[in-house]
């Protein structure tokens, strides 16, 4: 056995790789403070989008539930009235729930949606403590009202 050829040389070669990565660009981030950027088409938690005027895109048609291979979406529809309007047209989703434990994040719901209301986005922090908290309700999924509009509305109201 040749000590130089069989022991030192391979170890130093291995250590060289370690050293290169040690000195090179870091892949890890300080997680809770920093987050890695996700790919644009990453499919994580669902978001229900709104139109620019604040109306919900979702019309409660339940096509997402029909397309879902694991039946994790539950939609209950109701009728819009002129006093209480949630979405354009006749129909809106009164209840919209996704069981995130059952969901396999395949994105079929996004594909089935005729109004582009449901999209899967980058929010990957889905851990929780109880099973119940994995039922994402409509309030949790819905995009917040556009801030710009709220500010504009309040200023016009003040004037």
């Amino acid at each position, binding site marked *: 056995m040749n000590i130089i050829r069989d022991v030192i040389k391979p170890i130093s070669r291995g250590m060289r790789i370690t050293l290169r990565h040690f000195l090179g660009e870091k892949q890890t981030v300080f997680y809770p403070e920093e987050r890695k950027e996700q790919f644009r088409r990453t499919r994580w938690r669902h978001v229900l989008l709104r139109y620019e005027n604040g109306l919900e895109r979702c019309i409660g048609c339940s096509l997402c*539930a029909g397309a879902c291979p694991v039946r994790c979406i539950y939609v209950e529809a109701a*009728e819009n009235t002129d006093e209480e309007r949630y979405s354009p047209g006749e129909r809106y989703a009164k209840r919209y729930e996704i069981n995130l434990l059952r969901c396999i994040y395949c994105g079929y719901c996004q594909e089935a949606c005729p109004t582009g209301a449901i999209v899967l986005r980058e929010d990957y922090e889905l851990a929780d403590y109880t099973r119940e908290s994995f039922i994402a309700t409509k309030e949790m999924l819905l995009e917040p009202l556009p801030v710009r509009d709220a500010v504009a509305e309040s200023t016009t109201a003040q004037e």
Partner: protein
Amino acid sequence: MPKPKHVEPKLVNIEINGIPLQVPEGELLIEAAKRIGADIPIFCYHKYMKPVGMCRMCLVEIGTKQPDGSVRKMPKPQTACTLPCTEGLVAWTESEQIIKDRRAILEFLLINHPLDCPICDRGGECPLQNNTQFYGPPVSRYIEIKRHLPKAFPLSKYVALDLERCIHCGRCVRFTEEISGDAQLAFLFRGAQMQPHTFQLTEFTSRFSGNVIEICPVGALTSRTYRFRARPWDIVTQKSICSMCSNGCNLYLDSRSGQIVRINARENPAVNETWTCDKGKFEQTYMHAPNRLTQPMRRRGGDWEPISWADAYDLLLARINEARKTGDRQAIAAIAGQRLSNESLYLFQKLFRAAFQTNNIDHRLTRYQGNLQADVAARLGYPTSGIEYGDLESAPLVFVFGSDLIEEQPMIYLRLRKAWRHYGVKVLVAYPLSTPVEEFAEVSLRYPVGGELDLVKALLQRLSDSFPASPSQSPNPVSIDAAASLLAQSPGVIILVGEKAWNHPEAQSLLLALVELAQRLPDGKLALLLPEANSQGALDMGVLPDLLPGYASVDDATARARFEAAYSVPLPAQPGLNTDAIFHACLTGEVQVLYLAGVNPVERHYDPALAERALSACDFVVVQDALMTETAHYADLLLPACTFAESEGTFTNWERRVQRFWKAIEPPGDAKPDWLIFAELWLRTMRQTPPFNPREIMCEISELVPSYADCTYEMLGDQGRRWE
């Protein structure tokens, strides 16, 4: 001419897509094509309505075979729905020309269709969607603005009309003209502006309005009660039978998350064809009523105390044993409801006859509580209706006696109207008020309220003395003469006897008079229209004080011996008390324990005051029901039962057709099916193995009741079976 009972059809040779086949002459090509599985898309054609060829969707190429074997082709495509098959007809349903034509028709239909499928209640089960998927163009070339019309216009309490989606097939308009007969819908305007609507935009009040929702091939007519409640893929569909009346319409119950959201008709050509009435379709919601009973309760002073099933059984059996120890046979009595399944009713009578040794059981709340065996069967040979729906079409004359048919028996009304319209069956009606049957009746007899017996006697008199002008109290001697001569001239009259006869103060003499009338007429038949879903089953299952299952008399020792051998206990031989006698015995304190299973005498008995007094006088009242009814307020013990949607079983309709229904939803709370409650009580008193499911109970029934010998679940299938 009334429809002949049976005709041997003449067969003709035709050829579809190169496949030769023989079909009855005159059969529509569209029906003939189904025989070989050739799919012809349709919109306006409906099996039970006259073909009109309005939508042009069913175009096919046809030709005729020449004597030399060559085929002479028609230059233009023809509609398969209006084309009767004749000898030598040759048709092509999938030729290149036809494929192009279909695509063009669909492109035209879709020009003005809003394509709001995602929010349309028809989306997912829409013939227009399906046909477009299979035969339509992939894209539309129409880029102009579509027409805009009112959305979701409320036509009635149940039906919403969306004019944008209408494709002018005319099915709804034809339904109200041809089938329901009220002709409430019509096409307003012409050409592109055409729209189906009610006259003067009045309310659509037809009793059969729900059917137009089902036959609409697009989402133009939708249900208001089902609006936006579910999509087809959210729904679990289960076969069932309507529980609202004795017509026995076949239904589909569509449920979502344990809630019945919609009821649709299930096709049964022998019963309801494909129709339902609005009562069955929209008003059958009691399974989700807020006053459902969900757990056993006992009365504690003025309050209800929830108890377990075990405690409830203990309490009940303790009271029954106490009452039996007094040695008085009359101490226990029971009344069963007419919406219970055959299986439940059978176990009910078995429990009370064998385990509690009493014949004090009944189910009738009408004034007529006599012995049908003695009154009707002994003379006519059958205890209740010996006729079926199809017989109405082949009878020369149908006499509707004392029944507002459209209210009481909507499906018989539809079939009678069809018989009159298609086969020229004459109709004679006798009712104190104006009824829709009068519109097509040959003669209508309006008698003063309560004058049924006088009327029948007058008719009998006219028939016996070959029409001398005799003085009569009846209002219109002219129409009585006309009616009597009609009756005398038409051999094979069917007399439909309705609610007015059952509740006549002299019900028994009236029934006997009607039996005599039927006997007097040449080949006359009597059909007794029973009030509720399983009234016939209650009679068949022997829920009567004097008859065992299968109409065997309780004092007939040989008949009793058969049941005694099966139950391995002796049965009481004394006929028991009927409903009225039970109530009177409650008042005198003879009946100490009264068991009411699925029955609501305080609302349904002909004399509610008597029922109320009897229930408050009775020592211990057990009410087993699905709902907190008026009667349940008089109970000392409440047992929650299931409705028909939550349990399995069979109903026997007015024409003695035994039909199965299946479990569609889970029962609420601790509610149990009626048969299970009786089986568990049987287990506790008799220490014998109880039957474990309705299928087993039906096996036992088919062994013991000769008329039900063919009615095991395997034999019944999903279309039912009529016992002779």
